[in-house]
């Protein structure tokens, strides 16, 4: 089962959902904070929901305030990169580029894509954490034998 978990994680990396920063977070996990990564990711999804909403609202204005959008997205990108959300981060970069050149359609399209990646990642890590927690206690039991 440990192997299954490792494979799950490897696949998330191979498919570009996560990057090295996620490994950094895992390395911060210890007996005192055994669920640190899950806690951080949960915090990310909770806090970033507000940013997503702000960006959504800003995209409904006409004309678009690219400077404001860029600023919001910059924040979102920073947060996303701190948990290793690679694909989400890449959409953020694309979005900021469209802001820079004032491309409204580009921004709107990219944002839709970003939301998809954001939601997909959430589902995938939820499965991963759920699985990790199931086998966690088993691992501990094996180790203490």
């Amino acid at each position, binding site marked *: 089962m440990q192997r299954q978990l490792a494979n799950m994680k490897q696949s998330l990396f191979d498919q570009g959902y996560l990057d*090295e*920063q996620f490994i*950094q*977070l895992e*390395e*911060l996990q*210890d007996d005192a*904070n055994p669920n*640190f990564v899950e*806690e*951080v990711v949960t*915090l*990310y999804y909770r*806090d*970033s929901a507000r940013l997503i909403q702000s960006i959504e609202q800003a995209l409904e204005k006409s004309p678009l305030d690219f400077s404001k959008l860029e*600023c919001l997205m*910059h*924040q979102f*990108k*920073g*947060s996303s*990169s*701190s*948990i290793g959300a690679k694909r989400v981060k890449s959409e953020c970069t694309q979005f900021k580029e469209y802001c820079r050149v004032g491309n409204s359609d580009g921004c709107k399209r990219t944002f839709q894509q970003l939301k998809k990646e954001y939601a997909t990642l959430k589902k995938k890590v939820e499965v991963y954490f759920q699985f990790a927690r199931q086998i966690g206690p088993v691992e501990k039991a094996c180790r203490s034998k």
Partner: protein
Amino acid sequence: MKKGGRKISALVVDDDRVIRVVEEKLLVRFGLETKVAKNGKEALDLFVAGNTFDFVVMDMEMPVMDGPEATRALRARGVDCMIVGVTSRGDGPEKAEFEAAGLNCCWEKPLNAQIVGTILDKLAKKLS
């Protein structure tokens, strides 16, 4: 890491809660005593209240008081501890302005174990 018996102390300044949590944990893992502030003004207030730190991890863009402004204010007060800037705004005028405000060095986000190791090496050299 200890300095003559007491722990090295650090202040994390960032408006993003996720980043504060991650950076704080990272520094604590290195054995540092860490406090957090959510913008430049809060950071400055900590110093004004008499707190001292061996180094500060300062985000560039924050509401109320941003990194460059807080850095300038701290240096103007005579704070000479290491101030490490972190930003995701690559190389450019903003980074240059930030460095000119009085940083000891500037790193690209996100902060990781390698960067912290490098900062601590610099700090050791500075203190020796």
